[in-house]
């Protein structure tokens, strides 16, 4: 286990000031570490990795890490990533989005990227809230919980991000939490090596905005609660129905063989040019 942090330090941008901007205890830092470990374990060169992010807390991640990094507009990270991947399929393109980013303003793009099955790894960091703008409700804010724009409790049902991705045709869908860093490493590296669209939903609770409004005093409280609630897919099947409602299920929901869109394009080109 030793030297993990040392390894991560090798990937960070030394010209950037650390510690990073995330609140104390924010899971986004853990995700960044996990991402670096995954890329390292796959033996990818820094030059070949493009990190694309949207706007919001999650959008701040790429600036700290020494890959090719693109910080795009709100919700549109997947569209930029699509362009990059199609233009140069040799690159490993990893997209980092928040829940509002990916599902609210960028919902359309997520749906279509999943449908297209383009070879991107999409990490959706779900914190159930708009953190950077001060804690407004998002499309994943659980029913009944409070935020600055739902002072009397959320009335709308929440999105199940993994389910959305699955029904839209994504060929790899998994959910993990920041409290299971090793599981997260595995999920991220699988998503990266997966030929089609690989989406990993990462529950990374925001105690500063979400916790404060919903009776979680510290990040530790929040993580304890998360640890208690999260169950693996196998264990979930054994749970009695009344306990299933609240559980955060982790694991792989979908994994099927496929050909990425960029590969299909390459094949079509070869065929048209008669180079088979």
């Amino acid at each position, binding site marked *: 286990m030793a030297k993990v942090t040392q390894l991560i330090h090798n990937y960070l941008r030394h*010209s*950037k000031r650390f510690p990073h901007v995330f609140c104390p205890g924010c899971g986004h830092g853990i995700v960044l570490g996990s991402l670096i470990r995954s890329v390292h374990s796959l033996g990818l060169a*820094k*030059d*070949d990795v*493009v990190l*694309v992010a949207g706007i919001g807390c999650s959008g701040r991640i*790429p*600036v700290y890490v*020494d*890959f*090719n*990094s*693109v*910080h*795009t*507009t709100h919700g*549109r990270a*997947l*569209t*930029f*990533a*699509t*362009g*990059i*991947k*199609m*233009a*140069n399929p*040799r*690159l490993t393109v990893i997209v980092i989005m928040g829940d509002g980013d990916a599902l609210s303003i960028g919902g*359309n*793009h997520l*749906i*279509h990227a999943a449908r297209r099955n383009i070879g991107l790894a999409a990490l959706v960091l779900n914190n159930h809230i708009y953190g950077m703008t001060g804690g407004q409700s998002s499309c994943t804010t659980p029913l009944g919980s409070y935020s600055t724009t739902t002072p009397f409790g959320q009335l709308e049902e929440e999105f199940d991000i993994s389910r959305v991705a699955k029904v839209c045709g994504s060929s790899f869908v998994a959910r993990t939490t920041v409290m299971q860093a090793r599981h997260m490493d595995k999920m991220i590296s699988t998503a990266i090596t997966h030929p089609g669209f690989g989406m990993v939903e990462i529950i990374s609770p925001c105690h500063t905005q979400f916790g404060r409004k919903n009776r979680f005093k510290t990040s530790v409280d929040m993580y304890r609660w998360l640890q208690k609630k999260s169950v693996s897919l196998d264990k979930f099947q054994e749970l009695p129905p009344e306990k299933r409602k609240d559980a955060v299920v982790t694991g792989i929901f979908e994994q099927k063989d496929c050909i990425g869109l960029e590969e299909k*394009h390459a094949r*079509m*080109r070869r065929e*048209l*040019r008669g180079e088979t």
Partner: protein
Amino acid sequence: MAAKSRKKRTTEIFALGNEAVVEGALLAGCTFYAGYPITPSTEIAEEMSARLPRLRGGVFIQMEDEIAGLGAVIGASLAGRKAMTATSGPGFSLMQEHIGYACITEVPLVLANVMRTGPSTGMPTSPAQGDVQQARWGTHGDHPIIVLSAGDVQECLHMTVTAFNFAEKYRTPVILLLDEVTAHTREKITLPDPDDTYVFSRLTPSMPPEWYLPYEDNMRGVSPMPPLGSGYRYHVTGLIHDDHGYPTSNPKEVEQLMQRLFRKIDQFFYDIQMVDEIMCEDAEICVIAYGCVARAAELAVQQARERGEKAGLLKLKTLFPFPRPAVEKMIRKCPTLIVPEMNMGQMSREIKRVNNGQSKIHTLNRVDGQIITPGQILSRILKG
């Protein structure tokens, strides 16, 4: 082969304005198109979808909306491709956010906007010139931009090549304004010999990666741009950034960036300014027009000359940066200027601003979805 006096490889084709845009784009080295179909620009997408996959590495992808279209184009351009998209009014409105992104991150791309009657859905198959000011100021914040217009089918081809050259040379989005008439007119055009066509491709850095500054403030104001994955790792962000590309809020660095963005266009103004002076040498009454209206104006000016009026036409090919010197020259020369436009006066406002009360400026506006006829312009000229 080079030593032999080779026959010029020009071809004549009978093509739509939209198809000419595609020919121009391919000639300029475009290998990536992403977009969303919208009347009256669809032929560009259709033609691209048939042509690009036959090229080495050519990619055509139809995205879920215009926002995604321009997003993918920016991504592809970052990855080193010459990329373009095409749209029309409603799609152009959706794209504005990403135009701003391309301005601040200095990503070269070409956006063809085939103007149709607006606002909103308007009249999808009727021409207009209502997007002129949107092309200039559509995206928020101060930014420089290059806006070109094309009036006939041959010009569609040339202007597309020019648009790509400007985009690559100045690392900026270039907007090419067409109108429905030009886009949907089929004419005979000459495809120039690829060897005789001036094509500029972006400069890439040639220093060791550690020394590379992605947004360096050099003499040209444009720093070289490496494709993603070529060893020059840098940060691209829509936030105001320093010369390393990292977000900054230091007033000095913010000022430096903004000034440089404007300077890189301003100091090459005379390279970018393109106007045609037609019968202007001795003109006393001058028509200033662009796009398809300039063609009507050309006939009107000819007819006016036949009747003894000393009329001239200043045809604007570059709309922004506004060709102020060329317009000022005509203002000094002619006591009367006529600005026919298929909008309520978007360009005449610029001309009036430059005119500053020196000459009489008459506007001639038409917003009923019909093209301004030569007769209309002629009678305005004859009225004086």
